[in-house]
């Protein structure tokens, strides 16, 4: 009985000590996951995901509180990247593909208020105060923030047309029916 208690206690102390040492030696720094995730997001801080910006979105993602499909500007590419990093699977097939859009300013309606210019995080809107503004279609990433602030609703979001270069074959229908 005494040997039993003694030897067990001794082992416990030894093991506890070892673990204590181990815990110290092997302490891991803060999880760099958030930073990594943040790097994957577009960084336009547009807020479409429902978070204040990309950093918060990354925090939520890291905690598993947000879906990898949260970021509309990032689209499928970002969702897949996130999914891969987080080791989750997403069925992007079911997700209705959000057609890429860009913003167009109706020249008739624009009063040159420059509010949209300040909204645009990619400097995609050109034009001086009081003059008509235009949007560089190649640069616009379709966040639609400018459209939201435009006082005359001069900004429309337009689908990017499909070109020969962008077209590709659709996925063949599955041979299995279940």
């Amino acid at each position: 009985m005494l040997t039993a208690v003694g030897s067990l206690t001794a082992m416990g102390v030894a093991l506890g000590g070892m673990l204590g040492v181990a815990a110290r030696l092997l302490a891991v720094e803060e999880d760099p996951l958030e930073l990594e995730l943040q790097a994957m997001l577009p960084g336009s801080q547009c807020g479409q995901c429902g978070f204040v910006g990309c950093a918060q979105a990354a925090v939520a993602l890291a905690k598993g509180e947000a879906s990898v499909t949260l970021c509309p500007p990032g689209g499928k590419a970002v969702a897949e990247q996130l999914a891969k990093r987080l080791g989750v699977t997403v069925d992007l097939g079911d997700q209705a593909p959000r057609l890429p859009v860009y913003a167009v300013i109706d020249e008739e309606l624009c009063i040159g208020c420059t509010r949209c210019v300040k909204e645009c995080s990619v400097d995609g809107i050109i034009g001086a105060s009081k003059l008509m503004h235009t949007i560089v279609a190649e640069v616009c990433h379709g966040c639609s923030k400018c459209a939201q602030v435009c006082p005359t609703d001069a900004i429309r979001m337009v689908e990017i047309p499909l070109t020969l270069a962008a077209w590709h074959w659709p996925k063949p229908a599955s041979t299995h029916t279940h």
Partner: protein
Amino acid sequence: MNPLMKQGTLTHAAILGVFCLGFGIFLGLTELATRDAIAARAMEDRQNSLGQVIPASLHDNNPVIDNLTMQDAEGQNITIYRARKAGQVTGVAYEIHGSGYAGHMKFMLGVDAEGRVLGVRALSHKETPGLGDKIEIKKGDWILQFAGLSLGNPPAEKWKVKKDGGQFDQFTGATITPRGTVTAIRHGLEFFAANQAQLLEVH
């Protein structure tokens, strides 16, 4: 080194140590409480298995305690349990081994002073359920046919399964297990024959 670290280490060691101490005591007490019961169970197990191969009428001692250790033909230690009545050794029991289809088989063999089988029981085996496990008393009375037989009865060339020209039935579709069993019993009896004097010797 960092004092914090030392403290942490000690804390952890202490926590685990305390738990070990606590559970050590807990288990020690449990063991104390169950020790006798477990020993009694172990004794019962032994007696049970011996009881099946040595009829109670043959002895007035406790064969489990009345044992001696000998070496068999291969030099392995075997424990011999002896049944005595009025001081005379009336029978002995010991473990015998055989190899079956799926490996090692262990039996307890009881032999009376004349070298006749008192009884055989399988103690452990890995034979296939439904096939080879018919050597168990629970699954059939095949094993009972050995009672009363001895080395000369049947004659040595009949101490085989029928398939090998002997007198013992094999099970349908499973010859290996009975063959191993028959061989093991025969070897057991040969051991008795070789060591009869020593086995029956009264101290």
